């Protein structure tokens, strides 16, 4: 494979384009509403109408507005059909010829779409994830070629540093710095791992990226591997995402066949292979050291850092671990330059962020916005507010490691620092909207139960602390707790936060702490007055100690 071959595929694919394309969403959300049947019916209707030469029906990845699926977009007519069924799908073909479509439509220029800025999701809903040619037609793998032939690994790292990209997994560690550390670590064998263990309940960005544009992740990993000097990569995917796994397997196979993965990529001395590792349902495996233990076939328990994975990671070798979205940003950065990327976003948070908008909100789905976009724009303008005109009470970001941002802080710009100041985190991108009917103590208990179940049991603060905090929250919800219990809860939160081994325990108290900070009255309303008299007091004390 040389550049000319790549350009030839690109030209062929572009020349084969037909006058009209019907893009049909084939991501997991729409698939569960029978988008496969819709696509079959569309293809049949095209054949019946004899339009095979002018109309292409293309299965694509996520088209973002998941709540209205299955979605079908007709171009160049710019018509977006929603909730299409296999019964009314043929009428869309009739509409192409001037008839009337029975399927409902929505405005593709609505705020939900117009306010987005797509880098990671640029190809999502456009390319056919099952065909590498479709990705190549949109300049795919050209960045990899350029990197391999025109840049030294050091240049590649420098470009990443200049772009200002920060880890999209949640913590926001500068990606360039991480790449530089792994590149400098001595060792003949190095690894690149893509963390696709998207365990946050309420987050589905990584799933969508893998299902919609798997090649962008593969290309990003290959560029990273060249920069750090690795020749083996792993993608650790959750077993709960069967479609993403299938699409990745197809993508890797096609990339190997074309020679953009494997040995001697683009006739350079660079070799790189990628294997998939399937998780088995453990939230803690999102933590990098636990994830590596799991790739090694062990129980997914974290270990203390240092040594950091950049020095001693998988099988004791220097290892680069980045999140799916981080890798998906990489090809665009090398195609358009570090300056272009650094020009987007805020001073400290560059680029865009993908969020999975869900919960009590009108438009649920995927959005990608520049860093620094106010929460209000996302929730009210793009999301359309809570359904039925209910009042939005809070927005939860960061899943079980994050916090609840109350409605009075909706003007906060979305970036790593601003969210951190409010006691939440950027997290991987789950954004759950809650309205007045949501009880915040219940939310805190929900997340604590999650952390309690998912604690791996290695360190005591997390193993025992989450159980005790959960008991206290249950006690509060049952109206059996006293103000003393609330104090105890706060003490425990502080202790678990500061003494746990890994991120799971260190952040487990966050949802409780943030709801305590902004919705303390809801806790206090549930409290019972302290028992009176010395005897009663003693008993109360005894009880709390034994819970």
């Amino acid at each position, binding site marked *: 494979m040389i550049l000319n071959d790549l350009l030839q595929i690109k030209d062929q694919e572009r020349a084969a384009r037909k006058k009209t394309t019907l893009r049909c969403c084939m991501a997991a959300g729409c698939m569960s509403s029978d988008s496969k049947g819709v696509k079959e019916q569309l293809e049949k209707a095209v054949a019946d109408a004899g339009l095979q030469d002018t109309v292409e029906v293309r299965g694509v990845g996520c088209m973002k507005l998941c709540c209205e699926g299955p979605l079908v977009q007709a171009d160049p007519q710019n018509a977006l059909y929603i909730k299409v069924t296999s019964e009314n799908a043929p009428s869309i073909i009739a509409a192409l010829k001037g008839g009337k479509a029975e399927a409902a439509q929505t405005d593709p220029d609505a705020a939900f779409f117009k306010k987005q800025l797509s880098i990671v999701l640029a190809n999502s809903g456009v390319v056919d994830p099952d065909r590498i040619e479709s990705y190549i037609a949109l300049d795919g793998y050209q960045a990899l070629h350029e990197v391999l032939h025109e840049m030294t690994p050091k240049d590649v790292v420098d470009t990443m540093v200049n772009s200002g990209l920060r880890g999209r997994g949640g913590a926001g560690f500068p990606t360039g710095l991480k790449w530089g550390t792994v590149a400098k670590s001595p060792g003949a064998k190095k690894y690149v791992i893509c963390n696709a263990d998207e365990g946050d*309940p309420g987050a*589905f960005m990584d799933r969508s990226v893998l299902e919609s544009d798997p090649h962008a992740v593969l290309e990003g990993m290959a560029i990273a591997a060249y920069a750090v000097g690795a020749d083996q990569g792993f993608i650790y995917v959750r077993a709960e995402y069967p479609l993403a796994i299938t699409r990745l397997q197809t993508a890797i196979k096609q990339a190997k066949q074309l020679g953009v993965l494997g040995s001697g990529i683009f006739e350079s001395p660079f070799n790189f292979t990628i294997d998939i590792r399937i998780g088995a349902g453990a939230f803690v495996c999102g933590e990098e050291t636990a994830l590596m233990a799991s790739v090694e076939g062990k129980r997914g328990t974290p270990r203390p850092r240092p040594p950091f994975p950049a020095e001693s990671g998988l099988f004791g070798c220097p290892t680069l671990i980045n999140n799916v979205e981080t890798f998906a940003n990489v090809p665009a950065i090398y195609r358009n330059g570090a300056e272009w990327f650094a020009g987007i976003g805020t001073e400290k948070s560059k680029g865009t962020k993908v969020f*999975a908008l*869900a919960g009590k909100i009108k438009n*649920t789905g995927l959005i990608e916005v520049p860093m620094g976009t106010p929460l209000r724009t996302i929730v009210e303008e793009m999301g359309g507010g809570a359904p039925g005109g209910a009042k939005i009470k809070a927005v939860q970001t960061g899943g079980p490691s994050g916090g609840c941002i109350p409605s009075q802080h909706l003007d906060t710009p979305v970036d790593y620092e601003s969210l951190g100041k409010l006691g939440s985190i950027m997290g991987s991108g789950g954004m759950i909207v809650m309205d007045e009917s949501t009880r915040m103590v219940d939310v805190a208990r929900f997340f604590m139960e999650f952390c309690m179940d998912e604690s791996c049991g290695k360190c005591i603060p997390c193993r025992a602390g989450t159980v005790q905090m959960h008991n206290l929250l249950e006690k509060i919800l049952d109206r059996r707790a006293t103000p003393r219990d609330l104090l105890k809860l706060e003490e425990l939160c502080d202790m678990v936060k500061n003494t746990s081994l890994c991120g799971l325990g260190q952040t487990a108290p966050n949802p409780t702490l943030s709801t305590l900070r902004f919705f303390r009255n809801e806790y206090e309303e549930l409290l019972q007055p302290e028992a009176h008299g010395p005897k009663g007091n003693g008993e109360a004390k005894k009880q709390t100690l034994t819970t």
Partner: protein
Amino acid sequence: MIATPLHSKRNRLPAVLEHASGDKRFKILEVHMKKHQFRHDALIEVLHKAQELFGYLEDDLLLFVSYKLKLPPSRVYGVATFYHFFNLKPQGEHTCVVCMGTACYVKGADKVIAAIQDQTKIRPGETTPDNKVSLLTARCIGACGIAPAVVYDGTVNPRATPESAVKQIKKWTGT
């Protein structure tokens, strides 16, 4: 399973291997292990395959895996019990997985699961006495845009309600 007295488990290996020689599924599993060159780090992959073949991971199966991969049984058992995805008990004819992710939860997944529990009289993780239905919960299946989601025998059902869930269960149990 954990409660099984230890002595009855001693020297199980010859019996396990003899049993395995007569079952095709063990052969397939061994081929899969060979594909991974019997590497220790392939343990989770092997267990995935074993569960796919047998439906659940029973003690003898784990013993077989540990013997073939040359790993101590404690390590295999430790891994199998650590990850939620592996079942150590047989599942019912049908499985119903209710997503309990945050998005599903705030949209009423708790009511859906309560209705199913009411109908089947079993709790999450259990199987009905007639072995028809297993009820499970998932942490998040990533279908938050169509919450609440329930997975019936591997097919995701969007926007579930207590009524729709009970209807599906009744269809399975024939009541």
